[in-house]
């Protein structure tokens, strides 16, 4: 099967490519960009004129809910939603039921993803058994079973000693440790940012210090252990300052932010809007701008969806009793593009933070259009307007504060290994 994607604006940040060209695919792999290889007779031609052709997006954090919470979503339903969002590679955290703390569960997740065939799924293994925060997992076995890193998800560790040992052991096996920067004692069962809005609404707050204390403690242990650490979803400007400093000092650390933290602030909580109940919480305007700046100046390596589909009932309760999270795969790209439209950073840099840079953090072969690579490709029309409505969502979870938002930029086709897994009709 030979495919030509013709006349699209091809953006491949890893190869510093941004020009209108044609791209050629044979046997599921990219074979050339620009000039067709000798004797290339395309079986099908995809006209991409007026559209952007970029590597399939790489999402560092998407909860697929399987195994264990299939009423919220399944690997098949959620990876299909990913394909609609132009995402071809995603990383899922280990907080499934059972937890991904054994090779069996890690393999099950990948097997189901392969069977569904919409996206490549790379699991994170649990840092501690059952995510209970005390005994470390068989990280070597997890790595062999396909885990690309280890994480304790949102669960606290018993002590900084356990964190230190876990980091040392992960470093032994060259596994990146994904650390959710939230000091549990300071978070104190809060559910919103500790600030003016939370104070007004009488909702228990999570102070910025819960994040900065966790970042600082972890960074101190990075210096001690040499472990490679990635901080998912930082929410505050102050935490980014610490990361920037550590990177400047040459520490092996990186971080990402979620797309919703680039658009929403604590103000959006007014009226007790449970769709805005997320963790880490939405913080101030200043933090939101700090996160945007962090992507532009390179402190933040990636933008993730932090996809968390829920059944409707999970959000139908008084604010504090609702479950946190947004169904976000289908809005990752347009929300990122909106930041480009706001003039924060150029398109190529934004695409880098959705493709090549997160792939590097995972250490997987994805996120570029280099000849020889799997033809995982996202084609989108950057000028097309569309409105997010719950009936058209492919994710099983329709929980999103962005319902009825007018989005600019729509995925028209997604290819996984040269096969069309989504096409906009």
């Amino acid at each position: 099967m030979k495919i030509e994607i013709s006349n699209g604006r091809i953006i491949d940040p890893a190869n510093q490519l941004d020009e209108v060209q044609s791209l050629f695919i044979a046997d599921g792999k990219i074979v050339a960009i620009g000039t067709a290889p000798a004797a290339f007779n395309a079986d099908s031609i995809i006209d991409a004129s007026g559209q952007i052709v970029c590597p399939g997006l790489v999402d560092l954090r998407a909860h697929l809910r399987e195994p264990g919470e299939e009423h919220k979503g399944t690997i098949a339903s959620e990876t299909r939603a990913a394909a609609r969002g132009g995402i071809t590679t995603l990383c899922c955290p280990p907080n499934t039921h059972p937890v991904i703390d054994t090779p069996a569960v890690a393999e099950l997740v990948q097997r189901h993803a392969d069977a569904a065939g919409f996206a490549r799924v790379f699991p994170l293994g649990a840092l501690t058994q059952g995510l209970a925060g005390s005994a470390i997992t068989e990280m070597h076995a997890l790595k062999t079973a396909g885990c690309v890193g280890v994480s304790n998800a949102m669960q606290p560790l018993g002590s900084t000693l356990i964190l230190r040992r876990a980091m040392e052991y992960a470093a032994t096996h060259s596994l990146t440790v994904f650390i959710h920067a939230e000091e549990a004692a300071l978070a104190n069962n809060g559910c919103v940012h500790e600030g003016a809005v939370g104070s007004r609404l009488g909702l228990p707050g999570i102070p910025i210090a819960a994040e900065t204390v966790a970042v600082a403690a972890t960074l101190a242990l990075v210096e001690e252990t040499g472990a490679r650490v990635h901080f998912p979803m930082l929410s505050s400007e102050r935490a980014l300052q610490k990361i920037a400093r550590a990177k400047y000092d040459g520490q092996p650390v990186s971080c990402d932010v979620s797309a919703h933290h680039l658009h929403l602030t604590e103000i959006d909580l007014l009226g007790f809007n449970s769709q805005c109940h997320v963790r880490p919480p939405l913080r101030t305007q200043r933090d939101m701008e700090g996160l945007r700046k962090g992507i532009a100046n390179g402190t933040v390596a990636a933008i993730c969806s932090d996809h968390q589909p829920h059944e409707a009932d999970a959000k139908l309760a008084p604010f504090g009793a609702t479950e946190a999270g947004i169904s976000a795969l289908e809005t990752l790209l347009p929300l990122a593009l909106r930041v480009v439209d706001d003039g924060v950073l150029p398109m190529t840099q934004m695409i880098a933070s959705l493709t090549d840079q997160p792939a590097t953090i995972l250490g997987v072969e994805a996120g570029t259009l280099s000849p020889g690579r799997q033809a995982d490709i996202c084609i989108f029309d950057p000028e097309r307007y569309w409105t997010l409505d719950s009936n058209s969502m492919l994710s099983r979870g329709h929980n999103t504060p962005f319902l009825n938002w007018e989005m600019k930029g729509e995925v028209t086709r997604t290819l996984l290994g040269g096969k069309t897994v989504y096409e906009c009709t």
Partner: protein
Amino acid sequence: MKKKNRLQLDDNGKLKHFLTIEGLNRQLLIDILDTAESFTSVTEQTVKKVPLLRGKTIVNLFFEASTRTRTTFELAAKRLSADVLNINIQASATAKGETLLDTLRNLEAMHCDIFVVRHADSGAAHFIAQHVAPHISVINAGDGQHAHPTQAMLDMFTIRREKGEFHKLNVAIVGDIRHSRVARSQIHALSMLGVEDIRIIAPKTLVPTEPDAFGVHVYHDLREGLRDVDVVIMLRLQKERMRGASLPSEHEYFQLFGLTEEKLELAKADVTVMHPGPINRGVEIDSAVADGPRSVILQQVTHGIAVRMAVMSMAMQSHLPDTAEGAR
């Protein structure tokens, strides 16, 4: 804030739900006070009833324990000739989410007219108001640390009776402001009614985050904060709300923030002392002050009935059919 406006007021700007003081307006607060004033005579008659809400059913839906608030709501409803149903559902893991909605659906099916709701979660009354059938009014009797608007209004009623006007007053609120829904509602009501100098007095551990957003002056020294105040509102030290190490001991708290006759000397000579109850004698207030001539603590309880009658009758008025509206 617009959202709240829409939720609490009907198309004619009348009170439909009473969830929080925020988003209401000065005139509406004054209407509540005036209506309450007209009901005070009812509670002093030998036959303490008016037929305003005859045939209406009011449900006291209490997910959190309360004696005083529930009782005064019940009395207020009965004096308006309504039927009253008291339902106590101790907040447990199962009394949340689906169960809460299911409870509402069941009560709706029994054709009730007003839900008086107390719940441990901030925003619970909003949640219920957003999901009940349109013929039902929701009155917030305290939600988490968010709001307790009828308590605030009975306090405003008491202040107006004692002082007449609001705008020249200095009012101090002392104690655990951070965890207090009463304080939040009082601050909004005082500022909406024109009080310019609202002070909160507490150690830093009990001051809410970003107090500037409330438009109050913060004091950490009781003596300094009490200087020349017209009204001092003492809050109950809500031990059950304390998370973590907010205070070293009741003893030190009383020494620094407990109201005594001696400290009260710093306030204006005709200072009014208030407390939403129940009182912790010797913790936040000395018995001599609580029972003294400047205390109006028991009057507050009495006024609570008239104010709750006012709020319930006003909320029911918003449900009058349009034809009746047009006939006026």
